[in-house]
């Protein structure tokens, strides 16, 4: 479980109340201007958006840190489902080394998915329904091209989501995962085009990787999901 043992005033995934609807720093920042009552009212209203509500065709990620973690859980579900299928039905002429590393990656993504599911517990969104109809799992280019897109997307998603988190412990957890996604991205890129692990399509002229907002990420990932994802209650900063 994600419990806070060190800082009692931080939102807790199990016992969080109002605080999880917006970041702690913003709360205190606004308190300084003496408008706490108005903001608190807004927070209570926002609290009604609890995660996981919806039917089989749509899901609400929820708000606050829980919403951000559910967002990560959604992306990990997508990645894990993809690699499960890649390993279960290998493309033509998958080399032993590729098979071995793609199996590693599958296991990493399953570990990420199951971690979020366990940590979020009752706050976790449902299992998502994927749509891989655009992918030819028998074709190396189709599979590795999709893998490259997923990994780069995952890296940019975590990079963009860090600032949406209030609890530093969750930021560290996200950091533990994103660098592994970046390792995946680098290796898959090199399998697609040797030496493209961090080329100019991935890294800008300041030497920075991409950072995407949940809206940008979900507009791309949505093409691979039958379940519609509602991210409208996520924090925006």
């Amino acid at each position, binding site marked *: 479980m994600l419990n806070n043992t060190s800082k009692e005033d931080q939102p807790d995934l199990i016992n969080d109340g109002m605080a999880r609807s917006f970041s702690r720093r913003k709360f205190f920042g606004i308190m300084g201007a003496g408008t706490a009552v108005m903001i608190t009212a807004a927070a209570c209203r926002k609290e009604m958006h609890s995660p996981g509500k919806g039917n089989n065709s749509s899901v609400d990620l929820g708000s606050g840190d829980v919403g951000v973690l559910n967002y990560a859980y959604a992306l990990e579900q997508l990645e894990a489902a993809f690699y499960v299928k890649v390993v279960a039905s290998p493309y033509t002429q998958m080399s032993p080394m590729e098979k071995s590393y793609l199996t590693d990656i599958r296991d990493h993504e399953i570990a990420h998915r199951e971690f979020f599911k366990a940590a979020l517990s009752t706050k976790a969104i449902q299992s998502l329904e994927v749509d891989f109809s655009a992918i030819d799992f028998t074709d190396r280019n189709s599979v590795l091209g999709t893998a490259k897109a997923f990994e780069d997307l995952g890296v940019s998603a975590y990079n963009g989501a860090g*600032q949406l988190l209030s609890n530093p412990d969750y930021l560290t957890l996200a950091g533990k995962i994103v660098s592994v996604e970046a390792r995946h991205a680098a290796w898959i890129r090199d399998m697609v085009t040797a030496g493209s692990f961090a080329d100019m399509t991935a890294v800008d002229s300041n030497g920075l990787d991409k950072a995407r907002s949940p809206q940008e990420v979900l507009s791309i990932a949505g093409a691979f999901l039958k379940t519609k994802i509602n991210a409208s209650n996520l924090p925006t900063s």
Partner: protein
Amino acid sequence: MNLQNILSEIEKTDPEVYDRLDTRRSAMKSFAKTSGKIALASIPFALGSMFQKAYSSPSAPTDLILDTLNFALTLEYLESNFYIRAVASAIAPSADAMSALTVIRDHENEHVIFLKTAITAAGGTPVSFTADSFDFTAKGTFPDVFSNYGLMLAVAQTFEDTGVRAYKGQAPNLISNNDYLTAALQIHSVEARHAAHIREMRKTANLLIPAGVDVKPWITLDQSGIATSVVQPSYDGEQNVTQAGVAITNIGGHNISASAASEAFDEPLTKDQIVAIVTPFFA
């Protein structure tokens, strides 16, 4: 509203207000930057936020952010100077290897420039190092680091994996500032891309030390794939298979080995741990 008058009033009761706000110049710059983006009616919010930042902890977060950025800049100087030497040594055995080292060198240079600019813009003073600041033999531990290709890659791998752990450990220090936090994360994942590729280069060149060890793009348990125990502090702790109290091995009834569970999560290091690791590389 006259911000200057407000600051003067506070100064009468709290002479250290400008220290708390870092400096008057950066306080004004910070406010100007913020107020430029928001509607006039929101200015009290921004002011409240600015003062909250100054008073919310014993040492102002601004100082913490600048210290953190300067620590990152120090590590980027280390990496940048290492790859400048590595590329100049021309010991890379292939055009592909040379190209990869050049790509990485350029990124590290870009990180140095980016962080210098960010620190200056925030009203801080960037740390500064030159080629003479470094000793890449690590006080004689790696005497032929720029003439032994396998050793050079082993040191590069250690720097990259260590850099990833350093940014991961420092990120919470930046949580109060979205811009700096996001930029640090954007550097962090690039270091991880470098680490993965250097690891591949070691494997491709069949220059793992000792021969027969395996190295993958991701870190398995606390294995470095490098013979000397000198680098082990860069890998200690990576064997962790429990995250936020959740056991990852065989999680959810899935067949996840301890190796895969450790690979799936990279681990942070503290500033003190990082300093201990990199200190031998400073002259």
